[in-house]
């Protein structure tokens, strides 16, 4: 019985893992294939029938704007994370502690903001970024991505601050801090797990966006990975499959490792457990 359970467990885990990485494995295999190998229906697609090649990857870095896309995605992501934290942290703290009862219950209202998806907003937002003369620049993305990240992070942090024992902050007030100092010195350090989750999510959300990036930015040099790769490597009916796959793998694999190692943190982020409460 016990053995049966163990087999069942590893079997189920294996199936989930295969489901998760099968497309990615195919992606990695494809990245190193030669054209004559790839485009032959008779070949076993999982084998290298011809020697693997690095040509597709070198083409990606030398023959396309991929390095620029990477850099754009990275710095836009970082700026968006910073803006998100600057807006969400004080807002969430204020809602949870300072503006009275309705603030604590505003989680639902924040969710309503999150309900308005980019697909509903991109047409008017396109007019706004045009009006602000930021259309076709990365700044249009820096400007609008927080619309996705701020409601989410505020909601997450609101739960975090609410679950923090009030007595800690009251102790700080009595120990000589103003409310603002209490926020900086006690509330912020205690919400580090929540902040870490927010950083990951804000970065992931800004990296993942396609609609705004595709609609607002048309000049190749300002595009992100998300919008740049499909447009640059799919030219009409010509798909540069190996390079496309390499482009996706180069982004996904390092991030998967990073997120995977942060997995428990991310789970905690949804659990509202302040730092140091349980850890020894």
């Amino acid at each position: 019985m016990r053995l049966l359970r163990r087999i069942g467990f590893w079997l189920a885990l294996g199936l989930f893992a295969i489901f998760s990485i099968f497309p990615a494995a195919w992606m990695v295999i494809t990245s190193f294939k030669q054209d004559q190998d790839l485009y032959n229906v008779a070949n076993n697609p999982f084998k290298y029938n011809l020697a693997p090649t690095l040509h597709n990857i070198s083409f990606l870095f030398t023959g396309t704007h991929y390095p620029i896309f990477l850099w754009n995605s990275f710095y836009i992501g970082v700026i968006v994370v910073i803006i998100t934290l600057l807006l969400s942290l004080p807002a969430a703290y204020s809602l949870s502690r300072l503006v009275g009862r309705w603030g604590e219950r505003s989680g639902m209202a924040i969710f309503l903001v999150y309900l308005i998806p980019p697909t509903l907003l991109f047409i008017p937002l396109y007019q706004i970024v045009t009006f602000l003369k930021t259309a076709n620049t990365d700044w249009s993305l820096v400007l609008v991505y927080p619309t996705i990240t701020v409601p989410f992070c505020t909601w997450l942090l609101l739960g975090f601050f609410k679950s923090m024992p009030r007595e800690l902050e009251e102790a700080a007030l009595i120990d000589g801090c103003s409310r603002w100092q209490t926020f900086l010195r006690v509330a912020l350090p205690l919400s580090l797990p929540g902040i870490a989750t927010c950083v990951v999510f804000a970065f992931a959300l800004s990296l993942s966006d396609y609609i705004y990036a595709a609609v607002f930015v048309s000049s190749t040099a300002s595009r992100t990975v998300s919008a740049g790769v499909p447009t640059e490597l799919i030219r009409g009916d010509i798909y540069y499959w190996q390079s496309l796959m390499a482009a996706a793998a180069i982004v996904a694999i390092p991030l998967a490792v990073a997120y995977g190692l942060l997995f428990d943190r991310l789970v905690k982020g949804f659990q509202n457990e302040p730092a140091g409460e349980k850890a020894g």
Partner: protein
Amino acid sequence: MATLELRGIKKHFGSIHAVDGVDLTIAEGEFLAILGPSGCGKSTLMRMIAGLETPSAGEVLIGGQPVTHLPPRARNVSMVFQSYALYPHMVVADNIAFPLKARHVPRAEREAKVKWAAALLGIEPLLKRRPARLSGGEKQKVALARALVRNPTLFIFDEPLSSLDAQVRAMARSELRQLHDRSGITTVYVTHDQLEALGMGDRIAIMKNGRVRQVGTPQQLYDQPADTFVASFLGTPPMNLLERDGRIVGFRPEYLRPASASAAGADALRLKVRIIELEFLGAEWQVYGQLENGATGQKLLAKAQPAVAAGLRVGEQHEFAVAGAHLRYFDSATGLRIANGAH
């Protein structure tokens, strides 16, 4: 060190009157215990003294200065919380130093002060530890050190012993009191545990429903309760209360003795009591009885020395008596005490 004065303090949360008009004066260096059942408003009152709540009406004065609308940090009060509220992200030394840092005390002075406070409480070996790795008693000492380190004008304790084991608690009680005697800092001690209040307080204020029912020394409160609430709240077991001739008569269980064993005079109250149960408490016995004459069925409690208890059996009926000097009378309508013998 300073006096504390509360003038007509009220706090309303919507229609709930948590604190409903409290006047209190606490002398310099005094140890005042605020005692009451949960929900009596003592915590809210304490939070208004600390500055964590703003009163709906009334004034708080510390050292003669009105501080009603000042934030906590402008009052220089120290507080020890029930949960101790140690900052989990700092080691013990940083926890103790925190109030000094917040006041921009220079580093050298800070370190000296932390050492002094840690030595006073005997927690030097813990300085590098995180709060999560401390026992309840150790946490309490760290919280005390943090409260002491900056020479507050006023100490506030919010049930600081309630999360300790029973054995540690008795020790902690005397340590706390000694600490107060040495530092001489005016102290407000909020508790629902009457042993703490009776044992430590110079005076006790008993609260109920947002009002102070009586303020006085532990002896005054025990001997001369101002009303039936105080009488029944203080003392374990509490005062026996009986309806007699349109008023309420009260007496402590230790004065209710079998008539044969007491030298009660002519003014004594005599009662026929059926013994329901006898409980051995060590030095004495607790006797559960039922009144047989007058308000039949009323439960009574008595305490008996072993020699006396030896003559009692469950189920037997005995005559008990209380000497006239130990009887207290209360108005049956208001519950307030009336002078002995007055009708």
